[in-house]
C-alpha cells in the first residue's frame, strides 16, 4: 500500500502536477513564518545577559546549521532509495538537495565566523565542531562535483548516492562533537534530551525560523526537481501532453 503510493507519487507527470499546486501555498507559508520569526527574533526577543544584542545572529546561524545536517540526511536517504529501488525521482531529490544543503552549510559557517569574532575573539578555530562542519561543506561540494563529472546522469546518480551514504557518518560526529571532545564551541542549547537552556521568549522565534528554513528547503527542492525532471526527459510523452494543455 505504502510502496504503491510511493510509486504513484514518484511518477514524473503526477509529481509535476502536484508540486505545481503545492508551491504557491508553501511560498505563502514561508513568508508568514519568516516574517514572524524575524520580527520575534530581532525585535521582541530580549537581549542576552552575556552577549547582549549580538546573540541575535543565532536566528540565522542555528537554523542554517540544522538545515545543513537535515538536508544531508535527506540527500543520503533518497540516494539510498534510488540505489535500491531505482526510483528516478529519488535520485533527482538526492542531487537537487546537494546545492541547497551546500548553501546552508556555507551560511552556517559564515554566520558562525561573524559571531565568533566578537564573542570568542577569533574568526575561526580548528576545534571539532567547526572542522566537522567544514568537512560537511566539502562533502556537499564533492557530491556536486562528482555528479557533474559523469556524463550519464543515471550512473552519476548512483555514484553520488554511494558518496552521500559514506559521508553520513559525519552527521553524528558534527552533532556530538561538542560532547565527545573539548571544543571552543559551546554545547547544544535546544537539540538535546534535556530542557532547552534558552529563555522561552528567545526560543519560540528560533523554532519558527527553523520551520521557515524547512519550508524554504521544500520550495527550493520542488522547483529544482521540476527543472531536473524536464531536463532529464525532454522528449517525455507527459511533457507533450502538458504543453498541449497550455496551448
Amino acid at each position: 500500500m505504502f510502496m504503491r503510493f510511493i510509486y504513484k507519487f514518484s511518477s514524473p507527470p503526477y509529481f509535476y502536477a502536484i508540486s505545481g499546486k503545492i508551491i504557491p501555498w508553501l511560498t505563502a507559508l514561508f513568508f508568514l513564518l519568516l516574517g514572524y520569526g524575524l520580527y520575534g527574533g530581532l525585535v521582541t526577543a530580549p537581549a542576552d545577559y552575556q552577549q547582549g544584542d549580538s546573540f541575535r545572529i543565532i536566528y540565522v546561524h542555528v537554523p542554517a546549521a540544522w538545515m545543513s545536517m537535515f538536508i544531508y540526511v535527506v540527500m543520503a536517504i533518497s540516494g539510498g532509495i534510488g540505489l535500491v529501488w531505482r526510483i528516478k525521482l529519488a535520485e533527482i531529490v538526492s542531487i537537487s538537495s546537494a546545492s541547497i544543503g551546500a548553501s546552508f552549510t556555507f551560511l552556517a559557517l559564515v554566520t558562525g565566523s561573524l559571531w565568533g569574532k566578537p564573542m570568542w575573539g577569533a574568526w575561526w578555530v580548528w576545534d571539532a565542531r567547526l572542522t566537522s562542519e567544514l568537512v560537511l561543506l566539502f562533502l556537499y561540494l564533492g557530491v556536486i562535483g562528482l555528479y557533474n563529472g559523469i556524463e550519464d546522469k543515471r550512473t552519476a546518480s548512483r555514484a553520488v548516492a554511494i558518496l552521500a551514504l559514506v559521508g553520513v557518518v559525519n552527521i553524528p560526529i558534527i552533532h556530538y562533537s561538542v560532547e565527545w571532545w573539548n571544543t571552543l564551541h559551546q554545547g547544544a542549547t535546544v537539540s538535546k534530551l534535556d530542557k532547552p537552556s534558552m529563555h522561552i521568549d528567545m526560543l519560540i522565534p528560533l523554532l519558527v525560523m527553523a520551520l521557515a528554513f524547512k519550508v524554504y528547503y521544500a520550495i527550493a527542492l520542488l522547483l529544482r526537481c521540476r527543472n531536473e525532471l524536464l531536463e532529464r526527459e525532454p522528449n517525455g510523452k507527459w511533457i507533450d501532453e502538458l504543453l498541449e494543455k497550455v496551448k
Partner: protein
Amino acid sequence: MRIIKQKRLGLILLMVAGIGIATFFGLRAFNDNLMYFFSATDVIEGKAPKDHLFRLGGMVVKGSVVRQPSGLTVRFVLTDMAKEVTVEYTGILPDLFREGQGIVANGKLDANGIFIAQEVLAKHDENYMPPEVAGSMKNKPAESQK
C-alpha cells in the same frame, strides 16, 4: 526482483555500518589530538606538553584577576573545578572575559608552572536568557563548566 532489492539494501546498510565502525576506531585512536584544549588537571598531572605551545581551557576563578599597575599584563587563575593553574597574559582580553567565565588560552608553561598565554579566547556557554532572569538566578550556585 525482490531478492535483488533486498540484497542491495543489505549491501548499503553493511557499507554504512562498516564505515561507521571504522570511523569510530579512527576517532578513538586520535582522541587526544581532537581535544581543542587541555584542562587544569591535565597540566598538573603532566599530560600537557612541556616544551611547546598548547591550549589550556577552564573557568576564571572569581576574585583571582590581578592587573599589573602599568601595562596590559593580567594574571588570573583557571580552574576545572578540581585543579588550578595560574595564567599570565599581556594584551587585550575579549569582551566576554570576566570572572566566572570559561576561556581558552594558547601558550606555554614557564619554569615556575605559570602558564604564559599568547592568546585568550572567551568560551561562552549554551545558556541564553534576558538579564533580568540572569540577575534573579545569581544567588544560585553557578553551573559547572564542561
